């Protein structure tokens, strides 16, 4: 009997913390059961998409499901970003099922000051 408790139609929205510190926006995303190979982060203009596949656990063949409180599915969440971000400087790392994504803000072009001379 299969011990698969994955429902292919399930897509979860992961719990996320978003904070800013020293011009770096950090997203902390809970992705239980996900490893580094199955996370996909894409930044397209002002849209940031995080998608991930949680791997179902492999158990012995004669195991039966006895109790279920959580399901294994995929994660997906899309964010629209107001600020200009540096697409070259995105740092993503995953540890213990938690993805930390650091996005660097582009420094605003300092407005050119024009000195007015007296004629």
């Amino acid at each position, binding site marked *: 009997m299969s*011990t698969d*408790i994955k429902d292919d*139609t399930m897509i*979860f*929205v*992961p*719990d*996320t*913390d*978003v*904070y*800013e*510190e*020293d011009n770096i926006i*950090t997203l*902390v995303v*809970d*992705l*239980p*059961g*996900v*490893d580094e190979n199955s996370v996909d982060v894409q930044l397209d203009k*002002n*849209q940031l998409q995080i998608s991930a596949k949680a*791997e179902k*656990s492999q*158990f*012995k063949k*004669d*195991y*039966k*499901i*006895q*109790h*279920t*409180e*959580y399901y294994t599915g995929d*994660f997906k*969440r*899309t*964010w*629209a970003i*107001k600020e200009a971000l540096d697409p070259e400087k995105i740092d993503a790392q995953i*540890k*213990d*099922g*938690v993805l930390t994504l650091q996005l660097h803000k582009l420094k605003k072009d300092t407005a050119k000051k024009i000195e007015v001379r007296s004629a």
Partner: protein
Amino acid sequence: MFFTKDLHSINNLQEEMSKIFDHLNFQFIQPTTTRSQKNLPVNIQGNKEEAIVSVEAPGVNIDDIEISIDKNILNINVSRKEQEMDSKKYYLKERKIDSWKRAIQLGFDINEEKVDANYKKGILYIHVAKQEQSVPKKIIVKKV
């Protein structure tokens, strides 16, 4: 199943809606629901000899996981600790920082010597073996 079709159309509707929002280029696409953490969700699977209790607990230090056994009850204590928040400007805080406690009553006495726990990718797996006392004993009848 008769209502599967309806559920699918709800999914489609959601997809259509998010397409519209994408098209309108909304400032943020906020989901209606998140997978907010319940009190340590637990899955149990097993066979005649043992069971595996899997607990979804992402971002936990293994030092903050406590497991104890009392006959047929498996006690799990997990706490997720706060990061420093001083200089950070939070826009959103959905991840719960808390400590959770579960006492799971299993349908058998646990063999305390055969308990094995490991933490992988944010999920805690506890392997528990059944006590061998339930093996039936054979009684030989003597001739007097």
